[in-house]
């Protein structure tokens, strides 16, 4: 051991140099997951306290009948911002922060798959959040509820900028969620430590795998809804205007297609933390490991079958209500499986009552109550009675605070020693817990009764004598008790970060790999990456941390000059390649600012500036992509244990391809939602058929489809010529693809625009115009892909081994051609039939 010591120290010194994080103002360039995740967590907590203050204003207003504390308009802004901040600026970003911080450590990796994408996501989140906060400070915050139902939020009923702030600001923030989801999926599937098969993967990674998939499918309907509602407000395209063929219920469908899975997107990571923490406190492995995995996957799917239970009162056929009611009850079963697994783990273990355990027990109590009222609300007759009352407010807070906040507070206390290398103050923490727990139940348990007595949601004031005075006063007093608890919690965390007792490594005796590190962790996480043989590596092999620190694992060579982490195959987790990770970079921030400028231009109706911002963003993204890659075929990397691995630039399934693939899953969901909207309006909305159909021929649409197909084919040929070491042929085919793409850019709209009625006339023309814009946007991006691949080929970045640019361009053009042709069919075929023309 003593002989190895100088080598290990030298290895750590070298890794510190290679993974050094810039200091001072250059810290804005940081991309390492340790830094970006901390920023996410800290910013989310700031938003939590802002959202909490808004909640206190709500309770102050409702404490007494006829209160004059807030006027009705301000109250609407306050409750809208409370909900929006808690859902979009606190819960989701906190999940992202925890996932970014923990996942690489739990799976034995050195960083996430796309560090710069994570940093870009953070800047989008922060800037989007600041847009919303700026509006709040300026008195023009959104005021239509966090669900933004039209027609309340259309231009007629909300003429100011308030709704635009929400629609654009939240869409901007959503970029961060999609980016995080892609990053999480690729990291979990391709960067696990050798030997960490899917069955041995920590449960938190399983939960995040499912959650990230849900985010990719759940967020696009909301993004689509926000974009078309903003278009209706800004340009008068009547997607939701019943007088012109639109339907406000389309918004409800799109919103709740996101909104209900969102509840599980929030709950599942929290449950993942519970499943990860409990074994440490119960001092035994989790009970029912495989059943938990099954339950999580069931919940991931079933959560998408519940959205209409938010719409039970809008006039949907009873039979459809029964489908959704049945699915809503169904989801209780996998939830219960997990609860029983957690209880059984405690029952069969030797639990120790540390501070995080208080929050875990609080979670079990509160979440079970929220789940039971959820089953009540899943029953249609009860739902009709309780709809839009304070009963629903109480239920959702029991679910979200119980199912999300308590586990995450447990997580903050559990991993606090990891983050700061210090312990929290136990007595202060326990006092804070009891105030939060009692205050919470005092506030919201009573609110069930207020709701059952008929008090509606979202009213700024109420008359006395309805029996609501006392319960409201009790709720308000208890809410301030809870607020004091949160203040003490904050005090505990801040004080402990500076003066807390130094923590030993792994103070809870946890079995997972993150505790194999020094705390706080170094930027490179592990001096060498381990081989994992079971689910509890630190319990089965106590010497593992020392061996990893001594460089005895993989990638433990001192001869390292770039940031590297192992790439492994998704099932067996055997090493397949070495991922070269980027250094700190200013481009994520610059790209965030450029994209933000586009949103700001749209918000302030400075439409001429939006394309300028878009071009700047394009140039920056081009520069971002250009900064990686190799001009020569690289030598294999000696990864240790006799393994010589290729770098990711020359493997078929590079991180770039995987990332694009998952991004296209989100894009495909957006497209499917768009088709759903079109079909919904065409079949269910009032005011159809439209007064005028598209005047359509068949020559130009056919030519457009051919151009799309030729572009996709040409990129495939370019890839094939590249494989045959025919560089001139490759470049010619890329140029052909570019030309065919340009032709599509002209032919596709040429077949639609001349015969299209004005999009302001009817929802039919509006959605056709939007579908055309979708297709053209993708063709435009496809042109960039083709041009980029051509430029990279010309600059020497492509070879038969190095073909990432071609693989990604091919993937994009395949998608672009398929969706473009579907758009052409969806646009033209109904018009042909309406006109009696058979092409």
């Amino acid at each position, binding site marked *: 051991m003593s002989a190895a010591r100088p080598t290990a120290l030298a290895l750590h010194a070298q890794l510190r140099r290679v993974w050094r994080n810039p200091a001072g103002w250059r810290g804005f360039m940081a991309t390492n997951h340790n830094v970006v995740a901390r920023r996410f967590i800290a910013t989310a907590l700031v938003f939590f306290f802002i959202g909490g203050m808004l909640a206190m204003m709500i309770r102050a207003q409702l404490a007494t009948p006829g209160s004059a504390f807030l006027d009705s308009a301000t109250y609407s802004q306050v409750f809208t911002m409370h909900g929006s901040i808690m859902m979009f600026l606190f819960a989701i970003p906190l999940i992202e922060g925890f996932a970014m911080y923990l996942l690489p450590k739990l799976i034995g990796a050195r960083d996430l798959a796309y560090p710069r994408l994570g940093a870009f996501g953070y800047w989008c989140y922060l800037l989007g959040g600041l847009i919303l906060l700026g509006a709040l400070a300026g008195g023009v915050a959104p005021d239509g509820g966090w669900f933004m139902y039209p027609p309340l939020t259309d231009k007629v009923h909300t003429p100011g900028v308030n709704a635009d702030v929400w629609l654009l600001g939240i869409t901007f923030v959503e970029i961060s969620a999609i980016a995080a989801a892609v990053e999480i999926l690729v990291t979990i599937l391709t960067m696990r430590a050798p030997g960490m098969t899917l069955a041995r993967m920590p449960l938190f990674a399983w939960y995040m795998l499912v959650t990230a998939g849900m985010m990719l499918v759940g967020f696009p309907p909301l993004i689509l809804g926000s974009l078309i509602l903003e278009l209706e407000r800004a340009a008068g395209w009547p997607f939701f205007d019943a007088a012109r063929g639109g339907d406000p219920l389309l918004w409800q469908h799109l919103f709740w297609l996101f909104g209900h899975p969102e509840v599980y997107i929030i709950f599942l990571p929290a449950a993942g933390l519970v499943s990860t923490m409990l074994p440490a406190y119960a001092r035994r492995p989790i009970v029912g490991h495989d059943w938990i995995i099954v339950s999580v996957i069931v919940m991931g799917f079933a959560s998408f*079958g519940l959205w209409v239970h938010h719409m039970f009162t809008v006039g949907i056929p009873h039979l459809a209500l*029964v489908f959704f009611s049945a699915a809503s009850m169904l989801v209780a079963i996998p939830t219960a499986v997990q609860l029983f697994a957690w209880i059984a783990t405690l029952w069969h273990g030797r639990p120790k009552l540390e501070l995080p355990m208080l929050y875990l027990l609080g979670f079990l109590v509160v979440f079970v109550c929220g789940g039971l009222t959820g089953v009540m609300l899943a029953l249609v007759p009860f739902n009709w009675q309780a709809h839009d009352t304070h009963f629903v407010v109480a239920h959702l807070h029991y679910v979200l605070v119980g199912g999300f906040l308590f586990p995450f507070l447990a997580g903050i206390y559990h991993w606090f020693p990891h983050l700061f290398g210090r312990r929290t103050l136990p007595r202060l923490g326990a006092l804070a817990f009891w105030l939060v727990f009692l205050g919470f139940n005092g506030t919201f348990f009573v609110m069930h009764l207020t709701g059952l007595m008929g008090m509606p949601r979202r009213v700024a004031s109420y008359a006395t004598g309805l029996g609501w005075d006392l319960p409201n006063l009790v709720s308000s007093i208890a809410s301030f008790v809870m607020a004091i608890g949160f203040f003490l919690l904050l005090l505990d965390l801040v004080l402990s970060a500076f003066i807390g007792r130094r923590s030993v490594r792994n103070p809870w005796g946890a079995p997972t790999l993150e505790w194999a590190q020094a705390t706080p962790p170094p930027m490179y996480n592990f001096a060498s990456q381990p081989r994992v043989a079971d689910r509890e590596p630190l319990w089965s092999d106590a010497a593992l941390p020392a061996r990893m620190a001594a460089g005895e694992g993989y990638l433990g060579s001192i001869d390292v000059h770039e940031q590297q982490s192992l790439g492994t195959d998704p099932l067996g987790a055997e090493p397949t390649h070495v991922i070269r990770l980027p250094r700190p970079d200013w481009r994520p921030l610059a790209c965030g600012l450029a994209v933000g400028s586009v949103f700001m231009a749209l918000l302030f109706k400075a439409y001429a500036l939006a394309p300028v911002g878009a071009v700047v963003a394009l140039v920056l993204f081009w520069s971002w992509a250009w900064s990686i890659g190799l001009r020569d075929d690289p030598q294999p990397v000696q990864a240790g244990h006799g393994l010589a691995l290729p770098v990711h630039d020359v493997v078929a399934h590079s991180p770039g391809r995987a990332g694009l693939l998952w991004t296209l899953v989100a894009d495909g969901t957006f497209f499917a939602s768009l088709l759903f909207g079109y079909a919904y309006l065409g079949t269910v909305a009032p005011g159809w058929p439209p007064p005028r159909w598209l005047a359509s021929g068949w020559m130009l649409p056919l030519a457009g489809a051919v151009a799309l197909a030729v572009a996709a084919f040409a990129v495939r040929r370019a890839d094939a010529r590249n494989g045959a070491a025919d560089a001139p042929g490759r470049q010619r085919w890329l140029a052909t693809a570019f030309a065919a793409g340009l032709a599509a850019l002209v032919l596709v709209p040429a077949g639609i625009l001349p015969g299209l009625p004005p999009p302001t006339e009817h929802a039919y023309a509006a959605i056709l115009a939007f579908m055309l814009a979708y297709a053209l946007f993708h063709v435009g991006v496809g042109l960039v892909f083709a041009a980029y691949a051509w430029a990279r080929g010309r600059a020497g970045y492509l070879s038969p081994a190095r073909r990432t640019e071609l693989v990604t361009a091919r993937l994009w053009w395949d998608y672009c051609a398929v969706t473009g042709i579907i758009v052409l069919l969806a646009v033209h075929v109904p018009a042909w039939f309406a006109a009696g023309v058979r092409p």
Partner: protein
Amino acid sequence: MSGPARTAACLAHLGGGFLLWSSCFVVLYALLSLGCEAGWGGWLRPVLAAAWALHLLAIAAVLALQWKMRAAAGDGAPLAPPRSLQGPALALTTAALLATAWIGWPVLALPACAGSELRVAGPPS
């Protein structure tokens, strides 16, 4: 068999049953909405029941295939998930079959379009 193909097959084994459940859910809801709007009358219930039955059969077929693979070759079958995930895959497909039966049986018992008249009609076009 390539690594990505094995990964895709594994994910299909784990999620295939519930993908079919999702399909059943969407198809039933879409057919019901279309049928009620278009006034399919007495045809609607048999159409819904047929769609439901087809999905049940499809999931049952996946389940039978998984049993067969598990019994026949374990890890060795090219499209089989790793042995450690075969149990969860079977449990998921079984759960999907039960869930599909649970959400779909009302098509046999309830009138198809009752309640849709509650929706406020739009202005005359």
